[in-house]
């Protein structure tokens, strides 16, 4: 980490997230971003908070289908990040308020950024725009993959 970035990263368990967020809120930190990452083994969410020019990040690691509680009851601005994260990665976020039900980004392709691999299914890869329509359902090589990646789990 460069010297001019005062930044702490702390890994927390999913069930300890809200307590940690509550503590940061009481200490006067504000939410500056929520960042999601997806890999074949699951998702990771980084909640970054700013206090002056310092930054603190809470890191939560999730299994492929694990939900995460929404922090919108603590930080109203989290709704935009959480709706975006749900739309792009398909991460299950419980009790988002307001929940725009996929309307914030509203893409034609569900969870395009997801890389989660569910046992017995393939990972859906990006399909070229000019590909024949049938190739969408035939993407991947390890069995039937439904659009959305995990939809075809057995």
């Amino acid at each position: 980490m460069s010297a001019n970035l005062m930044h702490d990263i702390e890994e927390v368990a999913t069930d300890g997230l809200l307590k940690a967020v509550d503590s940061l809120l009481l200490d006067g930190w504000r939410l500056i971003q929520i960042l999601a990452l997806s890999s074949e083994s699951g998702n990771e969410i980084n909640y970054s908070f700013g206090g002056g020019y310092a930054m603190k990040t809470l890191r939560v690691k999730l299994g492929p289908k694990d939900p995460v509680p929404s922090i919108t009851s603590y930080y109203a601005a989290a709704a935009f990040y959480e709706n975006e994260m749900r739309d792009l990665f398909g991460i299950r976020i419980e009790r988002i308020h307001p929940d725009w039900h996929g309307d914030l980004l509203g893409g034609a392709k569900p969870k395009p950024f997801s890389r989660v691999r569910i046992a017995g299914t393939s990972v859906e890869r990006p399909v070229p725009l000019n590909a024949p329509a049938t190739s969408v359902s035939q993407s991947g090589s390890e069995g039937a993959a439904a659009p959305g990646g995990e939809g075809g789990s057995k």
Partner: protein
Amino acid sequence: MSEATRPVRGPTTIPFGPQHPVLPEPLHFDLTLEDERIVDAVPQIGYIHRGLEMLVEKRDYLDYTRVAERVCGICSFMHGMGYSMAVEDMLGIEVPDRARWLRTFWCELERAHSHLMWLGLAADAFGFENLFMATWRAREIILDVAEETAGGRVIYGSCNVGGVNRDPDDETLKRCAKELEKVRAEVARLAEVFVGEPTVRHRLEGVGILGKDKAYALGAVGPMLRASGVDYDMRRTGYAAYSELSFSTVVETAGDCMARAKVRIREIEESLRLVAEVATRIPGGPVAIPVKAVPNGEGWARVEQPRGEALYFVRAAGKRNLERFRVRTPTFANIPAMVEAMHGAELADVPTIILTIDPCISCTER
């Protein structure tokens, strides 16, 4: 009128956008109104989502700087620089001094031309065509300077991981700084018209007020935050050459549309002054170091763009293609505060409120 035929009075929901005369980019709101007053606004983006973040998985991490620049056509250099800084943070690279100063030079050029562009768009939205033409004419000089020093008017293409790839000589920089004196004089004249003109003041003063506490709590950044009285500017962290330059943070306290306009107008002056200072004091030496490392780990960077703080994140796993690149752009951070500023405003003021956050939907959607 009988009870049975009387129209039911209550909130009305109307669509605003995605195409609208004052919006250069698509942004949609479902506005809930009681009479003419807004009680709720639900934003919708996604019309121009390009998935540029995901493209990092396909490109060599050194080449990706060119893609990162294309996140936005207005603050392109800063996006390329922010990405480079995050990668440099991951690799533990220190860029040469002259490269840091040149980056600062181009950053401030970009801030000045972005604010001038916004000023012109705002004037155009009020129907003030002359002011629109005059601000864009002044901006043209800045674009010419960018072309002469960086090689591009919109996409500079001059920032690389490890430094910069252009090295304009000191004489060129000084001559450009002298040329920019004309812009400073013109901006001073235009600012007087913009801030003093009764029709402009009527549209901006007291409209879309955002309080200091709300602005901070909702994560507002940049001129949106500073216009609400919060002295917060990421340049204070001292990245690039800012730790060696003296500059003042422009802060206003009214929190309305006029305050946001005033912050930008005064920042143009401050940015052009910084450009002149960099041209005078820039140290000599190399402008880049060779970068051959295979990336591994993660890096972060925070940059003050014209619209506010942008936050960059990269992660790699020992391959030349990164696993993840993420940029939290300032417009995305300002949307919650903008929605808050709309509450209680008149429908006719919505375009002005949206404009004064200087939205960049291209950045927001990446």
